C-alpha cells in the first residue's frame, strides 16, 4: 500500500502525523461517497446511504481502536508523562484526551445512525441520502473541534458542526415545527457564534497576534505579568464573550432558551445527536480553551459557578412540569450541563477527569433514553409522558430498560450515572470549603431531578395503561426497525451498567487523558508555580 504513495507526500504525511487523523479522513470519504450517491441516478428509496454511513462510522471506530493500541496505549504504560508530539499541522493536538472525545463522538453518531434507520426514509422520502452527508459533516466538525489547539481551526470546526446541526434540525421539510426549530436554532446559534468570534478575536489581539493555544498562553503570561491579572478592561470583555459563546453552545442557563424548542421541533434522532454528540464536542473544545484561560485568569471560574448553578436549578425545576418527553429530556440536558460545569469551576485534575467520565456515561444513558423514546414513538406515535403509563404490562423489557436509563440519569447507585455524580461531587469536595455551597446545591438539585425521572417510572409501573399502550399489539409489528433500535438500547444498557461496574478503569483513563492533555497543551509553555493545577490538586 505504501508504495503507491509518492515519497514526497509520504514524507509530508509522516512528518505531520497525518495517520493520527485517519478516522477524520475516513469520515470525509464517507461524506463524499454519500454525496456522489445522492447525485447518481440510482434509486433513492434504498437504504444504501444508511448502510454506507454505518459501515464508514464503524470503520472509523476500528481505526480509532488501532490508534489506541499503537499510539496511546504505550503512553498509558509509561509512568512518566511523556512529552510526545501528537500535533498535526500545528493546529491539531491529537492526544489521548482528543482520542477519548473523538471515540465518544463517533460512537454517539454510530448510535444515532442506528436510530435513524427508516426514520429519514419515511419522513423525508425524496431526499434521504443528503441527511447522511450533513450528519457526517457534523461528526467531522465535532471530531476536529475536540483536537483543535488553534483559534482558526477551532472556529472552522465549530461552524462545520453548527451549520450541519441547523440543517439537520430543519430536515423535515414541510413540517412547520421542524422549520421553526431550525430557524430559532440558526438565529440563536448565529448570534452566539458572532459573540464567540468577537471574544476569540480579542484573545488574538491581546496575545500579540497568535492563534495557537501554546503561543497564546506564552504571550498572555508574559504580557500580564507586569499588570496583575485581569485588570485591563479588555480581559473581562474577552472572557465574558468567550464564556457566553460556549455557554450558548452547551445550552447552559441563562443561555439555554433555544434548547427546549429546538429539541422538540427537531427530528428525534437529531435531538439525540444534539443532546449528546454536540454537547460532548462542545465540552471537548471548551475544556481545551478554558483550560488555558482559567489557568491564567483563575478567578473567572466564579462566573462558571453562576452558570452551573443556574443551569442545574432552571433545568431541574422547569423539567418538573414538562408534559412532552422530548422537552423533559431537553431540560434534563440543561441540568446535566450544570452538573458538569461545576467540575470546571473547581478546575482540578480530578474535577476535569470526572467531567470526562461524566461525558462517557452521559453518552450511553442519554442515548439509551432517546432510543426508548424513538422506539415508543414508532410504536404509538406519541411523545407525551402520560402515554407511557402502564407500559410494563405490554412491553416489560422496554419499561425496564427505560427505568434503568432514567435511574442512571437521576444518579441512583450501581448505575454509571451514580459514579459519574459521585466522582464529580467528590472532586468538588476536594476543591475546598469555598465550594461547599456548590455541593449543597448540586445534591439538592439531584433530589429534585429524582421526582421527574421517577415520575415516569411510576407511571410505567403503577398507573393504568394509557390508551396508546392499551392499543399496542402483543407482538412487535416491525422487525426491521426494531432490530437496529434494539441494538442501541442493548449496548447502551450494557454500557450504563458496565461503566458502573468498571468505573475505576474508565476514571483512570480520564485522569491519564487529562494529565497528558494539560502538560502538552499548556504547561510546557507556562511556568505556573509548583502545582500545575490552580484549584485543589492531585
Amino acid at each position, binding site marked *: 500500500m505504501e508504495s503507491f504513495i509518492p515519497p514526497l507526500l509520504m514524507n509530508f504525511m509522516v512528518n505531520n502525523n497525518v495517520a493520527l487523523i485517519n478516522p477524520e479522513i475516513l469520515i470525509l470519504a464517507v461524506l463524499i461517497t454519500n454525496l456522489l450517491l445522492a447525485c447518481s441516478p440510482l434509486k433513492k428509496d434504498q437504504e444504501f446511504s444508511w448502510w454506507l454511513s454505518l459501515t464508514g462510522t464503524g470503520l472509523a471506530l476500528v481505526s480509532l481502536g488501532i490508534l489506541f493500541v499503537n499510539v496511546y496505549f504505550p503512553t498509558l504504560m509509561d509512568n512518566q508523562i511523556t512529552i510526545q508530539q501528537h500535533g498535526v499541522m500545528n493546529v491539531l493536538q491529537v492526544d489521548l484526551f482528543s482520542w477519548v472525545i473523538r471515540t465518544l463522538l463517533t460512537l454517539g453518531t454510530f448510535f444515532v445512525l442506528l436510530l435513524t434507520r427508516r426514520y429519514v426514509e419515511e419522513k423525508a422520502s*425524496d431526499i434521504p441520502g443528503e441527511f447522511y452527508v450533513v450528519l457526517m*459533516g457534523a461528526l467531522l466538525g465535532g471530531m476536529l473541534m475536540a483536537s483543535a489547539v488553534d483559534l482558526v481551526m477551532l472556529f472552522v470546526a465549530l461552524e462545520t458542526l453548527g451549520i*450541519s446541526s441547523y440543517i439537520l434540525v430543519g430536515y423535515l*421539510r414541510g413540517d412547520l415545527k421542524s422549520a421553526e426549530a431550525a430557524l430559532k436554532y440558526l438565529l440563536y446559534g448565529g448570534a452566539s457564534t458572532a459573540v464567540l468570534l468577537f471574544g476569540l478575536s*480579542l484573545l488574538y489581539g491581546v496575545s*500579540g497576534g497568535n492563534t495557537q493555544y501554546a503561543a497564546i498562553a506564552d504571550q498572555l503570561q508574559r*504580557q500580564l505579568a507586569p499588570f496583575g491579572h485581569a485588570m485591563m*478592561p479588555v480581559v473581562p470583555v474577552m472572557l465574558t464573550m468567550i464564556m457566553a459563546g460556549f455557554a450558548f453552545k452547551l445550552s447552559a442557563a441563562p443561555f439555554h432558551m433555544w434548547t427546549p424548542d429546538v429539541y422538540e421541533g427537531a427530528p428525534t434522532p437529531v435531538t439525540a445527536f444534539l443532546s449528546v454528540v454536540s454537547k460532548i464536542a462542545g465540552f471537548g473544545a471548551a475544556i481545551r480553551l478554558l483550560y488555558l484561560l482559567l489557568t491564567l485568569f483563575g478567578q473567572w471560574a466564579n462566573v462558571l459557578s453562576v452558570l452551573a448553578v443556574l443551569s442545574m436549578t432552571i433545568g431541574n425545576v422547569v423539567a418538573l412540569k414538562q408534559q412532552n418527553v422530548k422537552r423533559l429530556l431537553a431540560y434534563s440536558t440543561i441540568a446535566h450541563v450544570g452538573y458538569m460545569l461545576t467540575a470546571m469551576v473547581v478546575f482540578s485534575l480530578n474535577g476535569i477527569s470526572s467531567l470526562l467520565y461524566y461525558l462517557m456515561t452521559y453518552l450511553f444513558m442519554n442515548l439509551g433514553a432517546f432510543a426508548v423514546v424513538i422506539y415508543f414513538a414508532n410504536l404509538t406515535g406519541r411523545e407525551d409522558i402520560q402515554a407511557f403509563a402502564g407500559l410494563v404490562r405490554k412491553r416489560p423489557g422496554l419499561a425496564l430498560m427505560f427505568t434503568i436509563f432514567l435511574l442512571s440519569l437521576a444518579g441512583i447507585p450501581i448505575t454509571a450515572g451514580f459514579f459519574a455524580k459521585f466522582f464529580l461531587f467528590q472532586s468538588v469536595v476536594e476543591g475546598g470549603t469555598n465550594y461547599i455551597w456548590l455541593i449543597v446545591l448540586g445534591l439538592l438539585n439531584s433530589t429534585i431531578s429524582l421526582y421527574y425521572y421517577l415520575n415516569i417510572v411510576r407511571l410505567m409501573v403503577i398507573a393504568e395503561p394509557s390508551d396508546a399502550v392499551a392499543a399496542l399489539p402483543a407482538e412487535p409489528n416491525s422487525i426491521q426497525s426494531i432490530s437496529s433500535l434494539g441494538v442501541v438500547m442493548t449496548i447502551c444498557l450494557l454500557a450504563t451498567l458496565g461503566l458502573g461496574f468498571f468505573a475505576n478503569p474508565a476514571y483512570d483513563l480520564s485522569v491519564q487523558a487529562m494529565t497528558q492533555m494539560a502538560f502538552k497543551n499548556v504547561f510546557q509553555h507556562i511556568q505556573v508555580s509548583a502545582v500545575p493545577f490552580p484549584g485543589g490538586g492531585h
Partner: protein
Amino acid sequence: MTEAIIFWAFTAISVTAALGVVFNRSIIYSALLLILVFLSIAGIFVLNNADFLAIAQTIVYAVGMTIIVLFGIMFTGDRAMLDEPLTSVRKLVSLVLATFTFVLLIKTVQFPFSIQPASQSVIQTLMQSGSTKMLGELLFSQFVVPFELASVLLLVAMVGAIVLAKKTFADAGEMSSQQLSYSIDSGEPTKEANSALHAAASRGEVHLEEVTRS
C-alpha cells in the same frame, strides 16, 4: 499627511453612510447605503496594508451579503417594518445598549498590551507586494487543515441550502409514486404532478384509471 486626509475622508463617508443605514425610512435605501459603508471600510483596509481584506470585504460583503440582504427584503416586503411604530421604551433600551457597547469597545481597544512588532522582512514584503501573497503562504502551510475543512463546510452549507430551500426534488423527470400520491391527495394536481403522472403512466408505474377513480 495625504494618508491622514484619505483616512478621515473614508471614515467620514462610512460613518455618514452607517447613520444613513440606521435612520433611513426605506429599508431598500438602507441596504444600498450598506454597500457604501462596506466599500469605504474596504478603503480603510487598503490604507492599513490589508489589501486582501479589502478585496474580500468588497467581494463577500459589498456584493454577496448585500445581495442576500436585498433578496431577504424583497421576499418579505417592507410593509411590516413601516407599520410598526418604535415605542419610546424600545428606543431608550436601544440607546442604552448601543452606548454601553460603544463605551465598552472604546475601553477595550485602549489596552496597554504590546503587539509583537513584525519582523523587518515581513514589513518589507508588505510594503512591496501587499499581504495577499503572505496570506497565501500561511493558508497553505499552517492553516491547510482549516482551509480544507472550510471547503467541506461550504459543501455542507450548499447541500443544506438546496435541501431546505428547494420545494420539490422531482422535477428531474423522476417524481416518485409516493410524491404523486401527495400531490393528488391535496386535491388539485399541479401542472408538474400531472406531467410527471403521465410520464410515470407511460413507464407503467401508475395506472391512470386508478388515479382518476381515487
